[in-house]
């Protein structure tokens, strides 16, 4: 999940900033036996830090009080005297090691100083005593992740997600699940994030990306369609929408989306290649060639672009050129299914059915759901007199076609595309 990394960085930065400012005076003042400290707490809130320090020191001179030490620690950290603050928190903990707020305050101090390991240790201890507040729980989760403890991180994140209705926590949980290839779990987290933030670009995008990773293009279209509508300046969304549509065989719809993406960024090789493939599948070979040639000017090493261009050339009847290009693509990336398919088609046109069969079998090995490869292979076997194999691949072709058709109907239903034309 690409969105996850920068998100995490932002989270960390935000939490450090919060930690620097967020030492809770009220919580400290309300610690057991601290009610006489309320006037000091009010002084701190009013920014009268020097006076508060004097008052606290006077109080502590009359007898030990962990709550007073905690408050003094807060005052000192606000006065930018972190070493002294740390010492006061430590002394408070020495007297009352079970006071969770002191550990939280110490954890915040460490976070503000960038002492991540020590912060993690204090926050873990604090979390054992009582649930952490939302921001610290998120911080601890991120610290656990950085320390390579994803299970501990998830515990914190689950709690923040369920108790605080946090979308951030759900996004992190989804990222972790997607990283383990547990796409159903990731999508479940993202769906609950979408319930809370249905219009968030980050959440919609994460849902689309995980759906595509999970091989669920229809679910991806469901979130990419609103993304493309809400963010018309972004190239990614119509591009991904086009890619998702292609995966369910909606090449005309894909071409429209990809043309939109290309209008936003005319020099994006990925868009040019995808558009070339969409055109190829609509037998618009001349347009496909034009776009694919342009893509090769930008990324001459792209095997995908070369194979797609070979397909366009084959479609235009330029068999020699198509064959040369497809073979070069295979030199660079052996087993490339589209390159094998192109060679199979070329051999079919030449009547070299043995060679065609071999290429088409290789194409199917790389892409077992290729409708075209199964169809051509059934023809090749028929020409070679192998009726059983021909029938088998014809059946596989029909199955693949039906699967595409089913997906296309589902896509149309979910996006409303079926309603765009007149009734059949």
């Amino acid at each position, binding site marked *: 999940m690409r969105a996850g990394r920068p998100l995490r960085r932002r989270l960390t930065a*935000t939490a450090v900033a*919060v930690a620097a400012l967020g030492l809770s005076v009220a919580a400290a003042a309300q610690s057991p036996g601290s009610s006489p400290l309320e006037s000091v707490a009010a002084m701190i809130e009013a920014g009268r830090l020097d006076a508060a320090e004097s008052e606290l020191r006077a109080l502590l001179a009359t007898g030990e009080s962990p709550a007073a030490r905690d408050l003094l620690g807060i005052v000192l950290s606000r006065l930018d005297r972190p070493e002294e603050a740390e010492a006061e928190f430590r002394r408070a903990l020495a007297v009352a090691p079970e006071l969770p707020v002191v550990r939280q305050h110490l954890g915040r101090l460490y976070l503000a100083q960038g002492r991540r390991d020590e912060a993690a240790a204090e926050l873990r201890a604090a979390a054992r005593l009582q649930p952490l507040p*939302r*921001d610290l729980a998120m911080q601890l989760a991120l610290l656990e992740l950085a320390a390579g403890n994803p299970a501990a991180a998830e515990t914190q994140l689950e709690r923040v997600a369920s108790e*605080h209705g*946090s*979308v*951030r926590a759900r*996004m992190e949980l989804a990222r972790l699940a997607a990283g383990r290839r547990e796409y159903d779990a990731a999508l479940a987290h993202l769906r609950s*994030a979408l319930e*809370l*933030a*249905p*219009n*968030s*670009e*980050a*959440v*919609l995008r994460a849902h689309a990306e995980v759906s595509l990773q999970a091989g669920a293009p229809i679910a991806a279209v469901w*979130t990419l369609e*609103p993304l493309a*509508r*809400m*963010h*018309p*300046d*972004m190239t990614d969304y119509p591009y991904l929408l086009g890619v998702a549509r292609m995966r369910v065989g909606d090449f005309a719809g894909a071409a429209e989306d990809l043309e939109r993406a290309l209008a936003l960024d*005319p*020099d994006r090789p990925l868009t040019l290649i995808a558009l070339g493939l969409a055109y190829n599948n609509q037998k618009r070979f001349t347009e496909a060639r034009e776009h694919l040639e342009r893509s090769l000017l930008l990324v001459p090493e792209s095997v995908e672009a070369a194979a797609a261009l070979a397909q366009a050339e084959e479609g235009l009847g330029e068999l020699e050129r198509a064959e040369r290009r497809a073979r070069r693509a295979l030199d660079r990336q052996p087993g490339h299914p589209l390159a094998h398919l192109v060679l199979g088609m070329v051999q079919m046109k030449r009547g070299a059915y043995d060679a065609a069969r071999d290429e088409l079998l290789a194409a199917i090995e790389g892409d077992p759901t290729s409708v075209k490869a199964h169809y051509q292979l059934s023809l090749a076997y028929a020409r070679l007199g192998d009726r059983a194999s021909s029938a088998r691949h014809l059946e596989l072709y029909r199955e693949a076609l039906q699967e595409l058709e089913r997906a296309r109907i589902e896509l*149309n*239903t*979910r*996006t*409303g*595309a*079926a*309603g*765009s034309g007149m*009734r059949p």
Partner: protein
Amino acid sequence: MNPARRGRGRAALPTAALTLWAALAGAPARSEDPAAPLTTALTAAEEAFERKEPEIAESQYRSALREGWLLMGTLLAETGDLERAAEAFERAAGAAADDRRARVAQALVALESDRPDEAAILLRRLAARDPADTEVRQTLARALAAAGNLDEAVQELEEVLALAPDELETLFFLATGYLRQGRPEMAEPLLTRLAAERPQAETHLLIGRTWRDHAHYDRARTALRKALEIDPGLRRAHYYLGTVELLAEGRGRVEEAIAHFRAELAVAPDDAMTNLYLGIALVESRQHEEALGPLERATGSPLSHRDAHQFLGRALLALDRAEEAVTALRRALELAQETPMAAPGGVFVDLGESQLSSLHYQLALALRRSGRPEEAEPHFARAREHSARLAESTRETLSRYLEDETSQSAFGPPLQFPTISGLDAAQRERLERRVRAGLARASFDLGVLKAREGRFDGAARLLADTVELVPDFPRGAYSLGVALYNAGRFEEATAPLERARAGSPGDPVLGRMLALAHLNGEGYAEAAELLEDDPERASNPSLQYAYGVALVRSDRAAEAADLFSRLIADNADWPELHVVLGQAAAQQGDYEAAAASLRRALELDPGVAEAHATLGDILLRQGRLDEAERELEAELAAHPGDERARYTLALVMDLNRKPEEAKRLLRRHLDARPRSADGRYLLGKILLGEGALEDALEQLEVAAELAPDDPNVRYQLGQALQKLGRGEEAARQFEAFRELKQASRRSEGA
């Protein structure tokens, strides 16, 4: 527009607004604040922001935008500005993930604007997404019927009813559809079921009216009598029965109609339409004295006052009370000329020509009878103008009213939904101001959020909305300028930055940003002027450099020389500085010094911007085309976005007889800079040379528009027009060419 609908064009507005608001399912109930969803979402967004949940904050801001634009669209639709309402709904659709309500609202606007096909496309998409959305599918049926696809509309309703057999509203609409298809036998069981499931008097009233509207008068009578049987005091039952008698039987049943209207008035003595129809029917049956009372009562309502005055005038005229008739008819004429009139059901209808002529004719008669023939004459003349010398018969008028009324039930009765129509003008204005302010706030906050993510184009779009909604929004123009600047849209950034600067004239940061926007947008003279007085310039080498660049590029190279000498003394290894020095030298014709500076810049940094391009430019001027080509290609390889270099390379290619390469470069250049007059001119010239006359003309016309004072463009445009056989236009261009040339020589001489 369909002439049959023309009269209803304006009328549709109140209905449209009702229905539009209906589309906003989930909108607040009538008693609630219409802007509540907007303000609630804004508050939720701000809370989420404080809780460090930016995803929720963004989502809520977007909800606020959707709710705000929906409300704005509804307000606009209510004032009849359907075009701007449609724009507002489009913005609502682009604001949030769920666009259902915005699309339904757009469809309703399309329906009200007589574009039912467009409405049907929008609604079909929604219906395909959720086939169980009965509201959408019912509206789709309306759209289909309005587009003339009655059979499809009925089929749609049949499907909806099959999905939700207990939806009595659908059942009723379907029955109406069958009746419109002329299939009463299909409608009857549905209406019978409706009556059985809702056996109230009101149901029979509705059924009776529906039968009446489709000219099944016996069935209408039966249903309406049934309604009265259940509730003898039911409003409108006698009224409909009266209209049934008039529509069904013609003149012979007028007395029965009168009896029903009287019975209706016993229940509702002040009902304007019943009083009007009773009055008209009494005039029709020549009971003029009796007609006066109901007609006078009908003059009190805007629904009926125009026609009530007219028929009152006629009754008075028949009773030889000519003076009073003049007063009543004059008032009727005034009202007819003021505004269209609300017809039954609240639908405005324009007064027809024949009725207007009739009104003039009757007034003329009344004036003559009251001894004022000279005053009567102009009214006779107006009546004659309209070829309506005889008054339209009362009977015809009455029938027309009733037809207007029956045409209301296009596909079921008007939907009764909460509206915001109850507001007076001041309340409406206050609401609109609140909506604007809320939208501006949401757009601004969301724009700032996007800018922080580095998404400057998206931010600029939102911030442009902010200043459009509230031009003086705090920091609005400034933020828009900054977003545009960061998006690399320098020329666009200058206008909002200028506005912001006008608000804080002493702000040096703002002035500096504006200067840099001008500089990057090739507004060198403006940049130089702004930087000249910048207090920080003397101590800031970057600003000095920018100032120097601005001077060089605004043809003030000599002034820049000193400045650069000082700068170079302190910054000898600054490659960009050597480039600008080279450019300054080239500008003054010292190509040798220029090349030396540029080569030095490239030694310091082989990737430094504009060094190769400037060398290319110098080599071009020296006619060393192959070398120029190489330098410019090197520039573009390192900086593919340098459109100036691309254009110059195209020029070199053209001079070097490589038109295909030149065209390819120019097309790409024009994709990036569609307003490049030089690019259009050169492409047009090349195309003209190849004989692609129409294509050349297209480019040269745009070039002439962009650079109207360029004589070369005029000349080439003249050539293209001449070759296309458009001699006169060509001559005009050649004349413009000569004039511009002469002017240029004069200014050179001066």
